[in-house]
């Protein structure tokens, strides 16, 4: 694998391999020495042009537990704040002999562009409203765990309702692409104002009727209402949004038996998800966070574990 820029970069074999290796990586968390030597001597730079706690931290931990040297660069306090262009910043770091960049950037397509400039491998940790492939992988990892815990295996035929702010979400696109490969059937649920343009070409059903989708869903994935990206006017009030598209206590009770809740975090409790749903027994939210490190370890291992991949 040269880069991980989009969830569509993964075929079924490589996606399954990443999830399988992540299972083994998760065990490292319970070991006395949380360290594997696989990436000793590799250097991974996490460069984040946008705020992030869980993604940046989990990538940093993932690299460290694999014995890579990880360095964090944030846009604040770097030469970016002095006006250096993205291209110059990346080429400067690349010239220092970095093996991989983990990049988050507010512009869609940024990771893709960087991959064309640098020698190092590039992992997209979120580019604007476009993609966030490792989030989709850890969602899939948590879902697969859940499916296995209720005695069913595989994604084939499973209904995954992705609900809420699809317009500003990079998580949704990566999930749609990854589930296209894994075999889950994604249903998109959102008010008309929060649908991205071109959603009809994504190949999944789109509805405004949350309750109908909820009754059928094996997984209900709630997306954060991204207030920071909204100039306003997408919906009348948060309360009204919660009534139409929030996972309220009443909707929690109406979920199919064996169905589970996902949320990529951070959650707006009381807006897209009620506290009762966030803390419910069938909520996978904390499992998702725990899976984040293991899945990112697996991604780093797949990209950097072998020199042969680098030559491709």
């Amino acid at each position: 694998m040269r880069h991980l820029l989009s969830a569509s970069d993964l075929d079924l074999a490589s996606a399954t391999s990443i999830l399988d290796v992540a299972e083994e990586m998760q065990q490292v968390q319970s070991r006395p020495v949380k360290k594997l030597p696989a990436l000793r001597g590799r250097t991974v730079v996490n460069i984040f042009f946008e705020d992030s706690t869980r993604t940046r931290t989990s990538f940093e931990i993932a690299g460290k537990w694999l014995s890579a040297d990880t360095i964090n660069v944030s846009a604040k306090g770097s030469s970016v704040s002095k006006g250096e262009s993205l291209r110059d910043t990346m080429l400067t770091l690349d010239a220092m002999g970095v093996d991989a960049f983990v990049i988050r950037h507010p512009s869609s397509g940024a990771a893709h562009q960087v991959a064309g400039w640098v020698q190092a491998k590039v992992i997209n940790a979120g580019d604007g409203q476009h993609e966030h492939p490792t989030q989709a992988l850890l969602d899939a990892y948590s879902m697969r765990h859940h499916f296995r815990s209720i005695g069913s295996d595989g994604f084939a035929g499973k209904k995954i309702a992705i609900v809420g702010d699809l317009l500003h979400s990079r998580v949704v696109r990566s999930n749609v692409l990854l589930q296209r490969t894994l075999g889950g059937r994604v249903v998109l649920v959102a008010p008309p104002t929060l649908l991205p343009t071109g959603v009809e070409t994504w190949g999944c059903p789109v509805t405004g009727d949350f309750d109908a989708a909820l009754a059928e869903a094996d997984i209900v994935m709630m997306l954060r209402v991204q207030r920071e990206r909204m100039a306003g006017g997408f919906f009348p009030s948060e309360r009204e949004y919660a009534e139409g598209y929030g996972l309220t206590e009443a909707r929690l009770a109406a979920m199919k038996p064996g169905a589970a809740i996902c949320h990529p975090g951070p959650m707006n409790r009381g807006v897209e998800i009620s506290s009762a749903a966030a803390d419910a027994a069938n909520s996978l939210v904390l499992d998702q966070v725990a899976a984040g490190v293991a899945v990112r370890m697996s991604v780093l291992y797949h990209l950097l574990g072998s020199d042969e991949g680098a030559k491709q």
Partner: protein
Amino acid sequence: MADPASDTPTSGISPRVVVDGPELARSLARMAHQILEANRGADDLVLLGIPTRGVFLARRLAALIADIEGRPVRIGELDITMYRDDLRANPTRSVGRTAIPGRIDDAVVVLVDDVLFSGRTITAAIDALRDLGRPRAVRLAVLVDRGHRELPIAADHVGRTIQTAADERVQVRLSELDGDDAVTIGRTGGKR
């Protein structure tokens, strides 16, 4: 560790059987007794099989030991993929299962593998163990010692010592995976 990719014979000459099923069973029975004798019983004993075939051999040894001692012995799996010294030189390897039965601090760990060749797998296994705890002692049990060591590693318990040329391929066949029990030598070159 046997490389799954190299398990299919590539030459037209079929490999020669050097140890058949009954002989293999007798070797394992003797090894089980030797392990118990060296350890003066099954106290604190943990058998860790190295995937793939070491895991099945460890299970068989554990069953034999349980028969002799009348009580079960702790058993686990130790994958060494991440500790290999040739990780970078090869395409991305899938990672096997590591399952350690409880704590191994102060236990006597017996590493179990099918073929001892260069000694690199065992060196990696010792590195892996170091990250999992501090056993009182680590011993090595292998079904076949075929020589040609590249590192200062020796086995404590050996089923069969076989003289080989470096380019011969020694393969352990186990009924759990291969349908029958045997040790074969092939002239296919390569490692194992």
